[in-house]
């Protein structure tokens, strides 16, 4: 579902991504772990073209992201084409980025109404159902500022899910949450995974990775150091850098 081939991203002299290749199959849950600055966020942001790669190819469901295929030269997609592709790629951000001038329900259905041009009534039905599913049936009318961090993130997840994307990208979804709120968000993510969603998750929550991920990818300084099933990677890391990182993280 997601194919990343030899991806490079430079910010000036900083090499955020230094030749990353990864494949995420349909229904796979892949967790990206690694220290700050290792390139996890940058990688996710290249998948939906919030960052434009310096070199390399990203494909989602066979289609190249951000560029038109053909005749050798790289040509940008139009704004509309890119928007249409992005509608099939859901993203959840570390800082939620809910829209403060809309209530929870409106946040969730904004995409349906504006992008998919769905009638508001139909969108509202879907939005309500999804918010109930993430446990926020009683918070439909709440403005984001009246919600806890965990609630906001669940609204953000519902907002991404309601668009029925092919893949979901999670950029450290629980890193900004108080510890007691992390669990409710991870529970929602587990449920999404169990329903067969293809997920690429940058996270520090090793318990989640162990429980839900099919594969864990350890990144450091813009490169993939090691990939493997969680039990194997956590118990028997092959590389020294992986071991040193895990020693600091795993209790």
């Amino acid at each position, binding site marked *: 579902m997601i194919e990343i081939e030899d991806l490079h991203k430079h910010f000036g002299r900083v090499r955020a991504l230094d030749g990353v290749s990864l494949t995420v199959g349909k229904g796979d849950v892949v967790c990206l772990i690694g220290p700050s600055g290792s390139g996890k966020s940058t990688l996710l942001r290249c998948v*939906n073209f*919030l960052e434009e790669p310096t070199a390399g190819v990203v494909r989602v469901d066979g289609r190249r992201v951000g560029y038109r295929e053909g005749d050798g030269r790289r040509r940008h997609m139009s*704004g*509309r084409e890119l*928007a*249409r592709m*992005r*509608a*099939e*790629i*859901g*993203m959840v*951000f570390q*800082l939620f*980025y*809910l*829209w*403060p*001038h809309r*209530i929870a*329900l*409106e946040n969730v*259905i*904004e*995409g349906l109404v*504006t*992008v*998919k041009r769905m009638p*508001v*009534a139909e969108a*509202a*039905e879907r939005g*309500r*159902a999804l918010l*109930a*599913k993430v446990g926020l*049936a009683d918070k*439909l*009318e709440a*403005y984001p*500022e*009246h919600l806890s961090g965990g609630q906001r993130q669940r609204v*953000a997840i519902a*907002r*991404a899910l309601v*668009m029925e994307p092919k893949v979901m990208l999670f950029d450290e979804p629980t890193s900004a949450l108080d510890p007691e709120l992390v669990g409710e968000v991870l529970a929602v993510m587990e449920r999404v995974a169990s329903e067969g969603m293809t997920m690429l998750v940058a996270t520090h929550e090793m318990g989640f990775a162990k429980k839900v991920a099919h594969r864990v990818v350890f990144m450091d300084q813009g490169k993939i150091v090691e990939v493997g099933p969680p039990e194997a990677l956590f118990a028997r890391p092959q590389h020294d850098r992986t071991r040193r990182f895990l020693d600091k993280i795993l209790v």
Partner: protein
Amino acid sequence: MALDFSVVWKYLPILLQAAVMTVVLTAISQTIGTVCAFFLALARMSRRPWLRWPAGVYVWIVRGTPLLLHLFFVYYAAPAVGITLDAFPAAIIAMSASSAAYNAEIIRAGLEAVHRGQVEAALSVGMTYAQVVRRIVVPQAIRIIVPSYMGNAISHTKNSSLASVITVQELMLTAQMIYSSTYRAVEILTAAGAIYLVLTTCLTWLQFYLEQVTTYEARGLSARRRRRLLLDAPLPGLAA
């Protein structure tokens, strides 16, 4: 010399007529200025240097020099390029140019105050940039822009008095003409002051009203919005 306000009643119609000129002068130049300010703000925010730099220089010069100078400049410079300009059009041009510069910065600040993350979240959901601006950025920017914009509008109203120096028949010039023939400066100026105060107070009320209307959380949802969102309909039965 005792004060005699009967002069005011006698000349009130003339003063009010001049007040209309003040309002017209302010309203037209503020409208033109706002429209131009919008484009100027976009130019200032543009990634293209050939848009950004000229806009920046314009704002810098106009905001850095007195309106009085602009008025004289337009009025006296026009013949130099071969256009004969009446006082009123000259004042409109100068005041519009000034309004545009100040409001451009106000608009730009409002637009940039909307966090980039919200824009990214909107793009991620599949909105085009135009949709993001319309649905996400502008509604929030307006809330930030209103107080500064209205404050500037009030200043603009008072600054219209400067047009008197290039012979526009607005309130200040008319008041001067009246008391130069009646020698009742205190009374006439008090009356003129009162009229300015009425105008600015109306704008202040308008500002309060707009600030209220653009505050989303405190006011709750309108009945129509509730209905559209089916907020009062029973939740369909769902497995937990």
